[in-house]
């Protein structure tokens, strides 16, 4: 037994098969191909099934990680799925996009001494395997209930209990899925023409295939969730109308933090300068990678600079490569160590040939007489003392600037809350930075029975934290509507 345990421990993390870099930048298909059953069982066997698992504390929704991997060790995929689903309504999404290295995997004991142990258990990859495999097994059957609740039958929909969600990102989808599985009728109002929020318009197909999002949404439809696209909260309707005229018993606001920030430097409105939101929305929501088969065009250039160091910057850079750019550079004012992007995305970007221009901050964008972008002036930076966020503050090195030629600049320096709905909702208390103030335990806002969660409360964060907020709000809504402690 001891001998077996020692052997198990020494086995390194099971690699995930991926499309080779030079192949994948020629297509828009998913990069990471997922574990085979053998890979998954091998990786699952690395889990020590700790008495007091610390991985769970690293998970924003406290998934019973030990539990689901335990089921997998026994080869019981539906059992593993059921455990996942109890905590997470979009496991196939989270397995792909969560920053596991800062969460569950960051806390895994196997990561403490990686030379000896081979590194943390690949929890995210296992989560993805379980969710994908379960979905494949279900495919074809009428299995919406099972996909959402893990149960074979769902409660009847009660048309007298209605809840509205505004925005159709992961926070709202979680609310909708959870309440629908309890028989509550949910209507989701989304401003865009497609449902999924950032999962559809922001995160590219090559990282999160849209079929996966659609599969989850279809399952919710089967459970009776109604989706109304092209409905803009604050424009096509108000929260007050939803409650007073349309009779919704509760409203959840999950509108994200979609307003792009610019840098306020010269040349920002010149031809060839885009916000990452525009660039990614054209490519993903508009399927501009498939132009002219799809109508939405996008801007193409040989040399591209992406400003920023988060997931959004990585997605924009990798999209630019796939749209034919010869040279793509990420311009970031700190160093690689401070980049907030998921480790895997940064790694994949570098493998694909994305260059890093570190300790560089754009101070001007330069154009020709026709105001077409020709380059960027970047200020050299150095790292100073840590700031409030704990990261070392970048400071300019006097007189040290550099010209970087580029014909396309994509700005990914963060987002702010979109005021459209907020301004149109009287009595809704906002924070100093313009986000919605919500009770951290229930998600309730300053308006009775109006809840909020996700990026519109926290500022740009993660899919899993948006889902966690959705779940907390959904529980409270269910409690109020059904009068039971859940």
């Amino acid at each position, binding site marked *: 037994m001891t001998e077996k345990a020692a052997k198990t421990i020494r086995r390194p993390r099971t690699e995930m098969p991926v499309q080779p870099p030079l192949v994948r930048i020629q297509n828009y298909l998913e990069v990471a191909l997922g574990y085979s059953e053998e890979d998954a069982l091998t990786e699952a066997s690395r889990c020590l099934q700790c008495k007091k698992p610390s991985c769970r504390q690293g998970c924003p929704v406290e998934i019973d990680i030990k539990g689901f991997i335990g089921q997998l060790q026994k080869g019981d995929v539906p059992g593993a799925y059921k455990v996942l689903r109890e905590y997470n309504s979009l496991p196939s999404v989270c397995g792909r996009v969560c920053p596991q290295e800062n969460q569950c995997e960051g806390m895994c004991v196997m990561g403490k001494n990686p030379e000896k142990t081979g590194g943390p258990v690949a929890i995210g990859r296992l989560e993805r395997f379980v969710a994908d495999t379960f979905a494949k097994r279900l495919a074809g059957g009428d299995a919406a209930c099972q996909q959402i609740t893990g149960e074979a039958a769902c409660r009847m929909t009660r048309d007298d209990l209605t809840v509205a969600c505004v925005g159709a990102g992961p926070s709202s989808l979680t609310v909708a899925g959870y309440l629908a599985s309890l028989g509550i009728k949910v209507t989701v109002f989304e401003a865009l023409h497609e449902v999924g929020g950032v999962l559809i318009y922001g995160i590219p197909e090559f990282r999160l295939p849209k079929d996966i999002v659609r599969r989850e949404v279809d399952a919710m439809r089967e459970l009776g969730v109604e989706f109304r696209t092209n409905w803009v909260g604050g424009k096509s309707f108000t929260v007050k109308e939803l409650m007073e005229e349309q009779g919704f018993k509760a409203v959840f606001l999950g509108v994200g933090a979609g307003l*792009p920030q610019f840098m306020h430097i010269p040349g920002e409105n010149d031809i060839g300068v885009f916000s990452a939101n525009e660039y990614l929305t054209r490519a993903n929501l508009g399927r501009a990678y498939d132009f002219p088969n799809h109508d939405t065009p996008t801007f193409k250039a040989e040399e591209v600079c992406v400003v920023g160091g988060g997931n959004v910057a990585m997605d924009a850079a990798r999209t630019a490569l796939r749209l034919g750019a010869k040279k793509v550079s990420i311009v970031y004012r700190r160093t690689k160590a401070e980049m907030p992007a998921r480790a895997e995305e940064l790694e994949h970007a570098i493998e694909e040939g994305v260059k890093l221009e570190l300790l560089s901050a754009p101070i001007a964008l330069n154009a020709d007489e026709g105001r077409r972008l020709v380059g960027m002036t970047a200020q050299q930076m150095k790292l100073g003392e840590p700031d409030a966020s704990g990261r070392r503050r970048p400071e300019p090195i006097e007189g040290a600037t550099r010209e970087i030629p580029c014909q396309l600049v994509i700005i990914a320096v963060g987002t702010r809350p*979109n005021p459209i709905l907020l301004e149109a909702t009287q009595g809704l208390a906002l924070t100093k930075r313009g986000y919605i103030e919500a009770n951290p335990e229930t998600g309730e806002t300053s308006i009775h029975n109006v809840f909020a969660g996700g990026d519109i409360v926290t500022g740009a964060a993660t899919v899993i934290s948006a889902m966690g907020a959705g779940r907390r709000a959904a529980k409270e809504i269910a409690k109020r509507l059904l009068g039971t402690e859940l």
Partner: protein
Amino acid sequence: MKYRILKKTVLIPGQTSLLVIDAPHVAKKAKPGNFVILRTSEKGERIPLTIADCDPEAGTITIVFLVVGKTTAEMNTFEEGQSLHDVCGPLGRPTHIEKQGTVICVGGGTGVAAMHHIAKGHAAIGNHVVAIVGARNKDLLLFCNELGSFCPEVLIATDDGSMGHHGFVTDVLKERLEQDKDVSEVVAVGPVPMMEAVSKVTKPFGVKTTVSLNAIMVDGIGMCGACRCTVGGETKFACVDGPEFDGHKVDFGELRLRLGQFRDQEKQSMELFQHKCHCAEGK
């Protein structure tokens, strides 16, 4: 959700049509100056079009478009009974309408349609509305009868002199401003050069001038910045801060450049579409 075309009127064959669309939730809220974002098909591009009229009771909105690219060309092939794939709105800030005396509304090309909705709003609140409508020749004039039904004055200018003043709307506007010192506002909707010229004419008179910017848009709700324009030295998002701005402060040159960002691809799309149409017709 279906956005059925209840009525189609060809205003200028092959060029401009009017559609009355079933979109009750948009009609209920639409005000002069608002626009919608629409798509013709599942693979379509999101394009903004100003609402030319609405009927909240019937649940309909009216849009008028000029064929300039693939989307509008495709839309022009649609007949009554067919549907648009998506209609989202009403978007943008509505026109600021208050009782203020004489308002001159200038419209050029298809812009007359949107101008008509704004003029109607001004007339409804009791302003004296003078409409100035321009086109290349008399066959291309739009909405003159509709405007005549609520505007005490409708002045016309045609480039070839086939009707009304021989020349530009700006000539008529200038003359009017010289004679009438009580004009409180000028509203201009139309091609960029026309709105720019109107703003130039009104400037020396110090008359408040409002223009409606037809920037390129993607989401139309402030999430992408595609529609950004410079107004008074500041960057604004036309979809949420506008689409109407002070004409004396707008950087029209920048707007014109930004409107041309995707010209090559727009041409490619259009050619492909025309080719397909011709093949379908067996030509």
